[in-house]
């Protein structure tokens, strides 16, 4: 029986590859957009404009205080009530961007805060504008602190992308879910799904670990 299932699983294997591709596409795209949003928000959070700081703080807390599943439902099922209709794919990207952006914002803000305040004072004293202080002095130094957890966040983003299957995106998880209804060998089907996720995440985990190590070596040199 097992062998039979294995054989039929092989028959639908191309579907899994398509699902994997969708997962990679969604996480890859939203990884880029979330990084842009997260950096902008993180830099904005350290700015002098109070309203902007509070606004960003509210956004981050809202995202951190609600389940991702609920965020997706809001975007996909509730926005149409207000006349905003989205296809599953763009809805997924938007949800992932908003969620990832909030966490990356926190990482960026923390990294910038870790730069000694004398650095900003020195830059300020030479007449650099706020933007120039961030661009040339603060951010390059903050990157050392930001990079390892940022890559860690990418791993989470890939895994969280599995949740977008609930709105009908044909990602890896959804392919697994549909397959298991025809081939009732959960262990086998979701084992394969798991392996495929792992294949995407593992290099990222390795990269994060390596960055972490390199950064800490660099730090002890200073």
């Amino acid at each position: 029986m097992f062998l039979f299932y294995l054989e039929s699983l092989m028959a639908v294997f191309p579907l899994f590859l398509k699902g994997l591709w969708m997962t990679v596409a969604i996480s890859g795209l939203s990884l880029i957009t979330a990084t842009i949003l997260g950096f902008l928000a993180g830099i904005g959070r350290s700015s002098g404009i109070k309203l902007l700081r509070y606004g960003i703080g509210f956004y981050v807390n809202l995202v951190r205080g609600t389940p991702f599943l609920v965020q997706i439902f809001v975007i996909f099922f509730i926005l149409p009530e207000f006349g905003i209709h989205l296809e599953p794919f763009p809805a997924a990207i938007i949800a992932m961007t908003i969620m990832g952006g909030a966490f990356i914002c926190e990482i960026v803000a923390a990294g910038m805060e870790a730069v000694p305040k004398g650095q900003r004072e020195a830059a300020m004293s030479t007449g650099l504008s706020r933007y120039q202080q961030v661009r040339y002095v603060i951010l390059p130094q903050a990157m050392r602190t930001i990079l390892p957890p940022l890559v860690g966040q990418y791993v989470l983003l890939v895994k969280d992308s599995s949740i977008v299957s609930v709105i009908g995106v044909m990602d890896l998880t959804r392919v697994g879910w549909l397959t298991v209804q025809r081939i009732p060998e959960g262990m086998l089907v979701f084992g394969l799904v798991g392996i495929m996720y792992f294949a995407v995440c593992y290099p990222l985990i390795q990269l994060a670990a390596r960055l972490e190590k390199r950064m800490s070596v660099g730090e002890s040199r200073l």
Partner: protein
Amino acid sequence: MINFTNVNKWFGDLHVLRDINLNVAQGEVLVVCGPSGSGKSTLIRCINRLEQIQKGELIVDGMNVHDRKTNMTQLRAEIGFIFQQFNLYPHMTALGNITLAPMKVRKLKKEEAEKLGREILERVGLSDKVDSYPAQLSGGQQQRVAIARGLCMRPKIMLFDEPTSALDPEMIQEVLDVMVNLAKEGMTMIVVTHEMGFAREVAKRILFMDEGQIVEIAPPEEFFTKPKSERTKLFLSKILTH
């Protein structure tokens, strides 16, 4: 050049500057001393608005420092500020550190800025350290790069906040030498320091502060030989005996 009129500053409940009235003329070297917590660092940090004042008026180079309309970037570009902890940018070479502001604020071309940077590094005796990173330099060398970074903006005023306090004793002189030269070239300087040898050599006046107030201000001769206030005498007896 620098005018304090009834300047007051609080950190929360702490009254750190009390009714400061002070005039510093162009080309004058003023040394500020006093016990820790007396407000001497705060005094000079107000001049380029690293700290805000709450009351009074502070005019620097004709500009009202604490007026919202004042273009601070422009004013700060005219004031070099040297920190106790150097605060060099660790991710840039010595040359990178000192050419950043000339390129971004003064809009010099890269070659011009680097030419200027090399000249000024030579002036502080570091022409062989152009491509070194701060972590590869000694404390004294780092502080000299920091001074070069200030000078590279061709400032009208240089402020020094305990520039030698974080240095090993054998490195203090090399930094003081640079500062003495600067003073002799006619730079307007305010120096917070306890290096009384330096004060004696180049200061036009010495200011003694305690508890946020100016206790005494006098030319070096008078300051060291016949201080008026008891507080100054006590302070001098402590720092001059060793």
